[in-house]
């Protein structure tokens, strides 16, 4: 009996000790808890600060630039010679060069990317998918400087065999490798969009006697169109921002030539060209860097936002 009592008191004693420490550590934990929460929020804030920094930096330096060059000259001028006399600041040739490469790349990547996506989601067996998907991932993971090498040592010589009068640096070669570069993106994203179309829609169409071609082109692709369009836009925005392959393959000659066989300069290639030289801070050449970068940033941002709007607003929701 006495033993039991003793046991009882020790248990009681222990539990009271336990209670005391646990309440202390609990309050401690709560203090640490809010400190940690603040730390995590700060981390999340880094991305907001990054965006703010990009926007403030680009726009303030661009405003400085517009103090010495009129916006009209910048946006509508057709000669771009900022680095030597007589200097001229018409950005249209750079936009033209970027458009030439981007349109060429899109003509290559969009049909083939969509065809691959259709094959992957509608025709390929699981085993084939397991081979193709990693290959696409690998293609997407190859650094762009490698595509630049590919353009210079493989695509351009091959093009010269077909078109002997093509220049060493030309827009066509750049467009081809950029097309290859964005193809995996179109294929993967469109594949995801097509696979999200419920199987019952396909079964319904097949039950009405449609062939696989009709099911794909008239049911599946229209049903997944928002995702497919978004993938096109994202790939185009990627092509516009692409730098190394274009710099290596298309050269450094800003002009508004219609020919894909000639050397051009894209916005990104110009930025690289300036940063390779020794450009003093604050000079007009340094400011053109920000003006062109702002343009690039705004164009890609608008395209990305449009693609998000298409995704959110036009998505067909099936349950």
């Amino acid at each position, binding site marked *: 009996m006495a033993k039991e009592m003793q046991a009882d008191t020790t248990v009681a004693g222990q539990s009271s000790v336990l209670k005391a420490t646990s309440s202390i550590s609990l309050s401690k934990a709560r203090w640490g808890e809010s400190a940690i929460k603040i730390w995590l929020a700060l981390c999340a804030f880094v991305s907001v600060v990054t965006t703010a920094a990009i926007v403030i*930096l680009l726009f303030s330096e661009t405003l400085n630039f517009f103090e010495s060059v009129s916006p009209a000259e910048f946006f509508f001028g057709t000669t771009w010679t900022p680095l030597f006399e007589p200097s001229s600041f018409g950005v249209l040739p750079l936009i033209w060069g970027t458009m030439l490469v981007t349109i060429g790349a899109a003509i290559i990547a969009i049909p083939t990317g969509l065809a691959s996506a259709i*094959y992957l989601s509608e025709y390929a067996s699981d085993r084939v998918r397991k081979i193709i998907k990693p290959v696409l991932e690998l293609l997407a993971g190859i*650094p762009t400087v490698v595509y630049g090498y590919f353009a*210079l040592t493989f695509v351009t010589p091959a093009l010269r065999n077909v078109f002997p009068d093509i220049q060493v640096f030309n827009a066509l070669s750049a467009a081809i490798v950029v097309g290859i570069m964005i193809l995996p993106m179109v294929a993967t994203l469109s594949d995801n969009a097509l696979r999200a179309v419920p199987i019952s829609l396909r079964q319904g169409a097949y039950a009405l006697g449609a062939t696989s071609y009709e099911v794909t082109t008239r049911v599946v692709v229209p049903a997944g169109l928002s995702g497919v369009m978004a993938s096109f836009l994202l790939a185009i925005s990627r092509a516009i921002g692409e*730098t190394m392959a274009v710099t290596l393959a298309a050269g450094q000659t800003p002009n508004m030539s219609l020919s894909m066989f000639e050397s051009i300069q894209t916005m*990104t290639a110009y930025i690289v060209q300036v940063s390779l030289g020794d450009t003093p801070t604050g000079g007009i050449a340094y400011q053109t860097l920000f003006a062109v970068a702002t343009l690039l940033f705004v164009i*890609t941002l608008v395209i990305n936002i449009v693609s998000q709007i298409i995704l959110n607003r036009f998505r067909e929701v099936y349950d």
Partner: protein
Amino acid sequence: MSFSSESESISLARRHRKAKLFSMFCGMVTWSGVVLLAVLLYQVSIDGFRWLDWQFIDSFPSRFPERAGIKSALVGTIWLISLVALISIPVGVCTALYLEEFAGKGKISKIIEVNIANLAGVPSIVYGILGLAIFVRYMALERSLVSGALTMSLLILPVIIIASREAIKTVPMSIRYAAYSLGATKWQTAWAHVLPASFPGIMTGVILALSRAIGETAPLIMIGALTFVAFLPEGPMDSFTALPIQIYNWVSRPQQEFHELAAAGIIILLSVLLLMNATAIYIRNKTERRLK
């Protein structure tokens, strides 16, 4: 009657033929992507294999192709990636934890979310300009490893955050409820249960993000890493060169020998990337099996 059924059967046959042709076309286009990758890899290895030996790995860049190597570029890349990992992994994973576990569904987290999605689409060269203006010039970190690592970290942060959030989302709520019911605080739950459970998914995303950082060239060129570097960096404040920069340097020279050196450099770069991708896929497959 018989006429119409005949024409119908012809058109049916035609429709099926069309379907068949279409499927073959799509298949051919897709497989040509695989062939393309094979051609690319074959071409690069044919060009570069001759130069690939220990001397190439253990030499500094040089004006003479037969003496040139990638030692400083390789060491520079290892330094850079280690620093990028040190900066970007904690910040990225903490952001993901905050958004998934702590922030709730308020306006602020919505703003951060949209913001991260848009940052992921910003061209890498714009990050380069940001790095040049803020880290190199304004903070006067010069053209050092730190500048490069900070710039690269900002570039891959959105990728790490998005991947980590996806991984954290897959952790079942029951695990959290179990921890809460035993008296764990929110952070204790997140740290001791949610994070370990989502660790493989986070690792996969982190490895893929880092492999992107290894291949990025444009931001490094912007912050001025393209210089002749014939020494090894000894600390984070030293100037440096990196693999893709060295490759760019060799590709942009006219001589054939330097193109072949670039190919040899590309073989090494792609091997590193392949190894990292394989690790990521291995982790992914292993955890998929465990969850089943």
